[in-house]
């Protein structure tokens, strides 16, 4: 047996010193040689646990083999069969918890860098498209059925991608002026360049998917109107857009943002280019970010890039319990984000003009496990302390936006207002399907895409009278 190469080929990235002053992408991608070298590490094992580890079941061993043989077109064709947004998922999927977590190579060394290889193939494809060489996937003849998709985020785009291939007429409705959902407003430029998101969406558009922006379903049009007027089925992928707050004193002072507002201003509205773009954002010196997830890391790193001198990350549990991807935590640490773990905010105090000036925190210790399976944080009496800050970003999660449930008669909802859907994505309203964060609560891009694909399959079966 040949010698196994136990180490992943590292991907070049911008140095921490350099990148914390710009919004350019941090990891730079594999070169052809690096990709082939990494692809060659794959054992092409017969059990391929990676495929089952992938929420959209990409045929990973086959596309890796194609990269190894330098047939990138074949690689991207294989990926496209299961994933309509590989340039996105190659960047933001938590591969370490999914495909790479179960990779056989992981037992003897580093697992194969599947995400990086996916990104390599997708970026190759994007570059070739820019060169005018567009190869559209094949699609079935139009069957005359119209499907409305509510929300242009990951679940909606995945659902649209599958339905258009199967011969449906697909219209995606988006409340914002720009498509992409969380990919456009939430994930920062340095982690997911917006040009890539738009290029993937342009591809769907060229393939026949129609996009209607400035159309907030529940307000501009209701689900009932969509079903009555034009559409044979509806998929709701409106996301978990309602930001949670802690409801502690001072949380409505000026300078206290939800992560959604902060990131929307910067990413979607391009406030980092103010005043070239009109939307402003406060440039703060000392920033406190509350939370320990990917959104908290994104917020902290964004604040740094906007020009903050010091960014405190305040999280009530320990590092082990942080929901953020390890890669994101490492990136944040490298960039100098000041982690204050086992710490929770108690209140904010402002100046006479109503701007936040200090944050009072309390130290925490971990008790017994709670419902989430993580050890419950308990405040330590008398451990209060204050930090001087001039901006706070609250990144403690989101719940589903209530606009659609409130305006759709008969649509059943559950805990925190999630839309109830069965294993096929069918809701309590006939012909109306749902998936992604609005059903599961806040999760990942790829799980939402998986739900969108599942619903596309269910819609196909439903309209063919099979369910």
């Amino acid at each position, binding site marked *: 047996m040949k010698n196994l190469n136990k180490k992943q080929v590292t991907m070049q990235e911008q140095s921490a010193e350099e990148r914390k002053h710009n919004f350019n992408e941090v990891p730079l991608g594999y070169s052809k040689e690096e990709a082939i070298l990494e692809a060659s590490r794959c054992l092409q094992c017969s059990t391929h646990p990676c495929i089952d580890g992938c929420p959209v079941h990409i045929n990973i061993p086959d596309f890796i083999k194609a990269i190894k043989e330098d047939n990138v077109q074949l690689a991207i064709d294989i990926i496209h069969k299961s994933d309509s947004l590989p340039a996105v998922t190659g960047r933001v999927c938590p591969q370490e918890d999914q495909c790479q977590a179960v990779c056989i190579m992981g037992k003897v060394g580093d697992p194969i860098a599947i995400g990086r290889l996916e990104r390599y193939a997708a970026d190759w494809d994007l570059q070739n498209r820019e060169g005018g060489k567009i190869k559209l996937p094949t699609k079935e003849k139009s069957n005359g059925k119209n499907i409305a998709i509510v929300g242009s985020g990951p679940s909606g785009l995945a659902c649209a991608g599958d339905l258009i291939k199967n011969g449906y007429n697909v219209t995606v409705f988006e*409340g*914002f*002026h720009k498509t992409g959902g969380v990919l456009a*407003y939430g994930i920062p430029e340095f982690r997911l360049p917006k040009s890539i998101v738009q290029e993937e969406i342009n591809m769907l558009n060229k393939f026949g998917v129609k996009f209607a*922006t*400035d*159309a*907030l379903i529940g*307000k*501009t*049009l209701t689900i009932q109107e969509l079903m009555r007027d034009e559409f044979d089925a509806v998929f709701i992928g409106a996301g978990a*857009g*309602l*930001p949670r*707050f802690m*409801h502690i004193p001072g*949380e*409505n*002072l*000026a*300078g206290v*943002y*939800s992560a*959604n*507002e902060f990131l*929307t*201003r910067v990413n979607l*509205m*391009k406030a980092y280019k*103010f*005043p*070239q*773009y*009109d*939307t*402003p954002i*406060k440039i703060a010196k000392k920033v406190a970010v509350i939370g320990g997830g990917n959104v908290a890391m994104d917020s902290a790193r964004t604040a740094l890039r906007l020009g903050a001198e010091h960014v405190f990350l305040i999280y009530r549990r320990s590092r082990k319990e942080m929901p953020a991807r390890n890669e994101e935590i490492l990136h944040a640490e490298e960039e100098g984000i000041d982690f204050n773990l086992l710490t929770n905010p108690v209140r904010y105090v402002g100046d006479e*003009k*109503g*701007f936040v000036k200090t944050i009072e925190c309390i130290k925490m210790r971990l008790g017994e496990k709670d419902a989430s399976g993580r050890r419950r944080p308990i405040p330590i009496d008398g451990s209060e302390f204050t930090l001087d800050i001039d901006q706070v970003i609250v990144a403690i999660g989101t719940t589903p*936006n*209530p*606009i659609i449930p409130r305006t759709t008669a008969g649509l059943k909802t559950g805990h925190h207002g999630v839309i109830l859907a069965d294993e096929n994505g069918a809701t309590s309203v006939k012909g109306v399907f749902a998936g992604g964060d609005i059903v599961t609560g806040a999760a990942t891009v790829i799980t939402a895409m998986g739900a969108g694909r599942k619903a596309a399959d269910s819609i196909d079966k439903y309209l063919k009278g099979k369910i």
Partner: protein
Amino acid sequence: MFKILKHQKLGPKMQFMELDAPLVSRKAEPGQFIVLRVNETGERIPLTIADFNRKKGTVTIVFQEMGKTTHLLATKNAGDSISDVLGPLGNPSEIEHFGNVICIGGGIGVAPVYPLARKLKQKGNKVTSIIGYRSKNYVFWEDKMKNASNKVLITTNDGTYGEKGFVTDVLKKLMDGRELIDRIFAIGPAIMMKAVSDLTREKEIKTIVSLNSLMVCGMGMCGACRVIVGGETKFTCADGPDFDAHLVDFNILMKRLDTYKEEEKISFEKWKAEVDYYEES
């Protein structure tokens, strides 16, 4: 793109526009608002719907030139288009047969009061409108308000038209009068709505205000527009914009409205220099 069908100047720095937005118009109700964006680099700003014509598929906005975006919008002519119009957003005003209703509009706030008063009157209410302006040359929609109300009382700060003083001066007189007041609606600058609220709280007259918070998304996902109402955090866009005035924390509202004062100035100065803007006196 959304076409501007009409554009008229109503007074100093006060503009009227009719926008071609059939989907918004179809569902618009008094109390609701739109979010618009002038161009690709523009910010999203909320504007209360001042009127709508479902047959023509139009919505009317009335706005005051304050910062860059509103000044830029005012340079657009009939026939020009703007990038985005989203709506109708927020909840319609709750309108039923209350009895004796007072509608108060301050300055540019008179515009959204108009469709509200009209619908209140249609529902059989006796509508007395108090509309206040800075000075005579700022007065607009007097005739429309007369049509939409049973009685209209006008104030100007300097006394050049109607009664001299503020809307609250007239309101106070009405409250001291013999007639019972069943409900009050007030739309205008935050400071005016606060003054109305302070006045009516003692007498426990139910007063509804339409809040003009800062806003980004307009659809409940960002929380920029949050206000404290009855001790709880509410989103103006999703839970309002109408709230019970006596429960609103106006101090927080006003402080939050000033968050971007410096940035607004930078943006406006930059624009003025770029377009060689001539400020009218």
